[in-house]
């Protein structure tokens, strides 16, 4: 009896499998094909084996982009996670203010990526941007097109502005699920604010926080549009992250083989880091449960 039911279930999943095959697996196979061949167009392919992979693994250019990428993801996670939690903790729990807060927080998430980029690109310009202009007025030498540090600050601030509310909203949802009795008990036990956070709020937020960090890691590791619009990867190569570099390679230089090898490695790195991260977090959970 169990068996017939299972077969039926498989049958129902079949359309999804077909769609996934066409939309994900076939394109991926094309990329794999490019990564092990050389081509000069006209569908002429020459088998080169792992040559492109070797080239990429030893390429300084890729190493630098990877370094910048890791640094960027680390910085924005280090800012957005604590800031998001802090905002969630201080949002009103109910009433009109809570609704207003939720709407305001959701706004940045609704703006298309390239628009966010354009907004900050203009905002920071010394000639016509509000931010750039007033910083100059204050005597601060700020110019993201010339100074790598200024460029980094702009890109980081832009990402924080764009995405912190995602973490805040997820944490807020986690906080809302804590029954009031826990807070009452903590008051009776004379727990400090820190203890309430550490022993009640943080454990209850753990699940959503895991999802939030994973999402933000993957997203930031693949960031392309916003820095491309604001800095175009410059000045020099200072804000050329992996995606920007990849596009330069594939579209700008038309090095399809190396770009394909690059993509596959890029994909594997994200998969690996996410998997390690997920396993570590869920194992922590299990050990505590024991």
């Amino acid at each position, binding site marked *: *009896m*169990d068996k017939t039911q299972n077969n039926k279930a498989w049958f129902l999943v079949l359309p999804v499998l077909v769609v996934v095959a066409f939309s994900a697996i076939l394109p991926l196979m094309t990329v794999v094909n490019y990564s092990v061949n050389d081509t000069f167009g006209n569908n002429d392919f020459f088998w080169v084996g792992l040559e492109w992979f070797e080239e990429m693994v030893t390429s300084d250019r890729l190493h630098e982009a990877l370094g910048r990428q890791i640094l960027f993801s680390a910085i924005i996670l280090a800012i957005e996670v604590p800031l998001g939690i802090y905002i969630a903790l201080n949002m009103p729990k109910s009433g009109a203010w809570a609704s207003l807060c939720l709407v305001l927080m959701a706004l940045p998430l609704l703006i298309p990526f390239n628009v966010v980029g354009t907004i900050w690109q203009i905002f920071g310009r010394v000639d016509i941007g509000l931010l750039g202009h007033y910083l100059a007025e204050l005597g601060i030498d700020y110019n993201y097109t010339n100074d790598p540090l200024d460029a980094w600050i702009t890109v980081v601030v832009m990402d924080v502005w764009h995405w912190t509310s995602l973490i805040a909203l997820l944490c807020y949802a986690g906080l809302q699920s804590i029954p009031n009795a826990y807070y009452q008990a903590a008051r009776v036990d004379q727990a400090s604010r820190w203890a309430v956070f550490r022993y009640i709020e943080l454990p209850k937020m753990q699940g959503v926080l895991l999802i939030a960090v994973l999402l933000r890691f993957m997203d930031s590791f693949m960031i392309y549009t916003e820095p491309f619009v604001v800095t175009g990867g410059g000045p020099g190569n200072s804000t050329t992250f992996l995606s920007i570099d990849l596009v330069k390679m594939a579209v700008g230089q038309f090095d399809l083989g190396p770009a394909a090898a690059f993509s596959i490695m890029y994909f594997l790195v994200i998969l690996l880091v996410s998997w390690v991260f997920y396993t570590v977090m869920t194992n922590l959970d299990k050990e505590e449960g024991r």
Partner: protein
Amino acid sequence: MALELQSVSRVVKGQVHIQPTTLTLEKGTMNVLLGPTLSGKTSLMRVMAGLDVPTTGRVMWHGQDVTGQRVQDRKVAMVYQQFINYPAMSVYDNIASPLRLMGKTAAEIDRAVKSTAEMLKLTPMLGRKPLELSGGQQQRCALARALVKEAGLVLLDEPLANLDYKLREELRAEIPRIFEASGAIFVYATTEPEEALLLGGNTATLWEGRVTQFGPTTQVYRQPADATTARVFSDPPMNFIDCRKVGGRISFGDALTAPAEGALAGLPDGQYRAGFRANHLHLNAHSGTALELHCSLSVTEITGSETFLHLTHGGQRWVGLVHGVHDLTPGANISVWLDPAHVYLFDPAGHLVAPAPYAEAA
């Protein structure tokens, strides 16, 4: 015409939820599943309903195998501990919803809804939304929705557990009446022995996924097949004392012996376990054959007309329930009396070897 479980078991991820169980529930009977939390009551109900497929065995409905059949295709109604209603619909629409799904005509629906509402005393609330009602009324609405379908099998999973004590008492008194009017097979899960007794009908006692006994409720109560059943079906818990049969006498230690009469006379000599219920302990020598037991009293609890005595006897914890208000000093050593007629005798493996003589007379 019945629901039959044939060696049904259920194992989930290596954990046994139900051990192989064979059970026949006849048409038009009230059946209580009695057992503590996690004893398998809900698992068994889910298999009966068709929400879960048993790992082994078959479920027969009126002689037909319905083991793999989906719950939607069976005539089953279920009521849960939580009050589950459609919050956006009126009570009327809530009760009417299963009939609408069955495609009945408006006139038929109206008649059925009104008569069911009348039976459950919901007529004045038909136009209101469930959340505007008290807990008891919400649960009546859920019950009405289950009954209106005229399902052959009505499953009630601790339906009164979330209600106030007095509301529970009220609705509990009504359930036998509702059941009699419906003619369906009722299955009612509860953790409370008193609830099983009040509902009457048949009772299956459950312990760790196993049905330990099934039969008419008072028979299971008075003639439990083993010590586990006796424990599950006693509130306060059944008291136990180790004893030994030597020749024509049974000794309870302390140089306390009683003649082994009746069913006991034929038992082989050896070690036994005697069990008796709290209300059979007395504070005086109430009968000529009563045994005097020396206990230490840890706590007394007074309910107004009765007193619970929490006792320790030779390392065993006992509870006694005596009439009247007795304000005894905690920590004192006191004597209690027990009539051997109220004692069940179990062998070391826990099987009943001799029922209490009084129970056989009853």
